[in-house]
């Protein structure tokens, strides 16, 4: 009996050892140089961007690290002592300002940066980040559910205060979502602080839930879970293209917005490859790619219509958006916001 069990043990350990050998990480030794790129680009954008860059530079391979804006920013800050990323390609400018404040970004002026809109780069020289595209707050409006519930189509932010929307409206939590923060920062800048908070006090009465992610309100609107969601115009357009019963509204008088941008991480051990990516990200070809997803991109004079995108997006972008102010006051705004709205439990019916 003991012989038998010993064989069983030996057999089992042989299986385990070979299983472990198969499971241990073994990275194929590729010839290409690996560049670790942190990004908050949408999933569907990653493949075309990577393909285009690697076609232009066959010797470099992009290794994406993708997550939502809040998470990528948190990771970069957490890894401050020992950065893991080489390049950041596609992260909110407001986040990059925070990273820049902590001295995590390497200044670099990419080739052709003069062709980009002046707004789309950091104020430093050489710039520590360079813009890619812009996205803005929008309202996703589910036409089917709205009709069922008799909810009129809003045209302005003020319209959302109508009590008829009570419990039918969701928006992202600015503490966790970049879109949530740019929207709140937009209101405060456009209306002035006192009025902005008064507006949010009233809006809060109508909000059914504050989501963690910026695209979720639009997806919930698309699924009819909540008929209206304050979200991202890009998400609305792409969901509508996929057949969701949505209208994408850019409310008057204009929306808060943010840029996605590129930056080189200070201390990267592949500075040459990182610069090649920064050059590529600012090139005309790359901007044409961005323009297949976003209506507003960094390159001057580049505007191509995108299916189901709300019209004149660039005109609806709030003028004089002050990123430095937003970054400087971020902690204060979020603390105030949390104090006012986060403590409430489910709104009473």
């Amino acid at each position, binding site marked *: *009996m003991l012989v*038998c*069990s*010993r064989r*069983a*043990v030996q057999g*089992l350990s042989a299986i385990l050892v070979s*299983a*472990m050998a198969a*499971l*241990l*990480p073994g990275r194929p030794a590729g010839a290409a140089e690996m560049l*670790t790129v942190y990004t908050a680009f949408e*999933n569907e954008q*990653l493949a075309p961007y990577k393909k285009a860059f690697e076609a232009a530079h066959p010797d470099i391979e992009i*290794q994406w*690290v*993708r*997550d*939502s804006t*809040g998470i990528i*920013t*948190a990771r970069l*800050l*957490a*890894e401050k*002592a*020992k950065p*893991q990323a080489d390049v950041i390609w596609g992260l909110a400018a407001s986040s990059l300002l*925070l990273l820049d404040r902590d001295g995590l970004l390497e200044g670099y002026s990419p080739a052709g940066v003069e062709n980009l809109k002046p707004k789309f780069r950091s104020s430093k020289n050489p710039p520590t980040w360079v813009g890619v595209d812009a996205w803005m707050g929008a309202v996703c409006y589910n036409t089917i559910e709205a009709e069922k519930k008799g909810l009129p189509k809003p045209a302005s932010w003020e319209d959302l205060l109508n009590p008829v929307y009570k419990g039918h409206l969701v928006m992202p939590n600015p*503490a*966790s*979502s970049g879109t949530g923060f740019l929207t709140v920062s937009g209101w405060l800048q456009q209306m002035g602080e006192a009025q902005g908070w008064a507006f949010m006090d009233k809006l809060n009465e109508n*909000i*059914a*839930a504050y989501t*963690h*992610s910026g*695209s*979720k*309100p*639009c*997806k*919930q609107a698309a*699924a*009819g*879970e*909540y008929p209206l969601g304050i979200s991202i115009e890009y998400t609305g357009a792409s969901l509508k293209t996929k*057949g*969701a*019963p949505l209208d994408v509204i850019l409310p008057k008088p204009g929306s808060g917005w943010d840029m996605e941008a590129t930056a080189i991480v200070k201390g990267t051990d592949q500075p040459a490859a990182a610069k090649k990516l920064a050059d590529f990200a600012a090139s005309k070809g790359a901007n044409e790619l961005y323009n297949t997803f976003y209506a507003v991109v960094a390159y001057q004079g580049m505007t191509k219509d995108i299916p189901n995108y709300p019209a004149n997006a660039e005109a609806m972008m709030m003028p004089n958006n002050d990123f430095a102010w937003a970054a400087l006051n971020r*902690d204060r705004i*979020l603390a105030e916001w*949390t*104090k006012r709205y986060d*403590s409430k*439990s*489910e*709104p009473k*019916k």
Partner: protein
Amino acid sequence: MTAPGIGAGATALGTPAVAGTGSGRVAGERLVMAGGLAALAAFLLIFVAFALYALLSKSFQDRTGAFIGLDNFIAYFSNPALFQSIGNSLFISIVSTIITTTIAFLFAYGLSRTCMPAKGLFRAIASIPILAPSLLPAISLVYLFGNQGLIKDWLFGASIYGPIGIVTGMVFFALPHAIMILYTAMSLADSRLYEAAQVLGASRVRTFFTVTLPGIRYGLVSTVLVVFTLVITDFGVPKVIGGRYNVLATDVYKQVVGQQNFEMGAVVGMILLTPALLAFVVDRWAQRRQSASLSARAVPLVPKPNRVTDGIYLAICGLISLFLLGILGVSAYASFVKFWPYDLGLTLANYDFSVVDADGWKSFFNSLRMATLTAIIGSTVVFAGAYLVEKGRGAPWLRSGVHLLAMVPLAVPGLVLGISYIFFFNAPWNPLNFLVGTMAILVLSTIVHFYTVSHLTAVTALKQIDPEFESVSASLKVPFYRTFWRVTVPVCLPTILDIALYLFVNAMTTVSAVVFLFSSDTRPAAVAVLAMDDAGSVAAAAAMAMLIVYTSATVRFLHTLVSQSLTRRTQAWRRR
């Protein structure tokens, strides 16, 4: 053979040698044993004690790392929103604990004290939730009771987003643990007490309060504490279905991920540690008192058939099983639906994760790899460690030290463990910071997270083996590692496999610790579920959650097959 002179010399040098035997080898063996124990102690010290210390010190520092005393705590408690989370967390935990314990009590009672049919089936169903990540019940509840839910009218206009949803999800998630503990407690009853009660003419109610309840009181205490701790530290359920109802666990996520406020995250982590620690201490106390409650002369209680009682419990257990299967079934169904609620046609498209998630199927294979490594390495380390603690000779303080350290992880919520690992391993001075972002840190954190239960399981099994084996081997001059390999391991193989299964399933489903530790290369499937739900791709999230369930279920099925054949082949001696 060693010359007696060397033995005498060793004794003269102060080495406690066994007179007349090969003391050189014994000393060598002791060295191996002490070395193993020291390595294990170092591992637990680093991955439990030091890491927690890093968290503690972080909560007293500001962003720049300067010591600021209690300022973070004061800032936390003076923020009404954050402060309210404590109340919310307590409320949710208490209500969930009461409901879960009640339901589990009825279920366990039906299983152990009645003659209702299909007990095996009920036991199998009751363990299903263990196979699923805690996000799954929350996702299912949205599909059932959300604003476009299948049966949302059942809530009479109340919203599932908030306390109702959180509590329901928690009950699903905590139920199997509660049932397991209560079932074990109820199976150990002395029928002589019931006979005495009957002879003395006590009513059924009186018997219940004077015999049944006191008999399982420690099991009941354990259940309440385990459920309470599970609920207050789980973050999957409130994350998905909490709506505007904030709890401590989601606060940690918001502070660390949303606001990049690691110091405040550390404060919330410390607060979360308190109830868990308290529960842990009380539980230790209760278990110590229980040890001798069942005497050797006890006669096991065998339930007698009673058509009414059996029928009632069949109905109750049936309903509870229906609830468990229903929750699981809804996610299984929703994962195949094209576009909820407008197009209920069926599709496999939601299983093409690459559409909504950069990693696509990679997360799933990451989890598979992580769970397998955790199971293999974990069961090896845990069992070898438990052997050294239980059967080792010498170094008593080292052995009890390791045993004590092995108890700590039970009191540390995964979330807290994850955050403390960020602080500890990311520190530039830490020579181990090469671990950051690797699969190794995920595997290590998961082993540590589930160390205690595995360790206790191993110790229990080892206690059943007569220490004579060690004495006989020693007198036959067989080194301990050979006894270990040729006697202990084969005898305990079923237990080792149980530990491996436990580690595997938990590694597949856990989110809490790993959510702060994964990297692009290693993101596990349960985190992908969270991310996809977060981004509003709920159907894909349900699909990935179901994949986890299918995988865990398959592995458990394989485990049953292997254990059965092993038991037949190696455990024949257990049968009489």
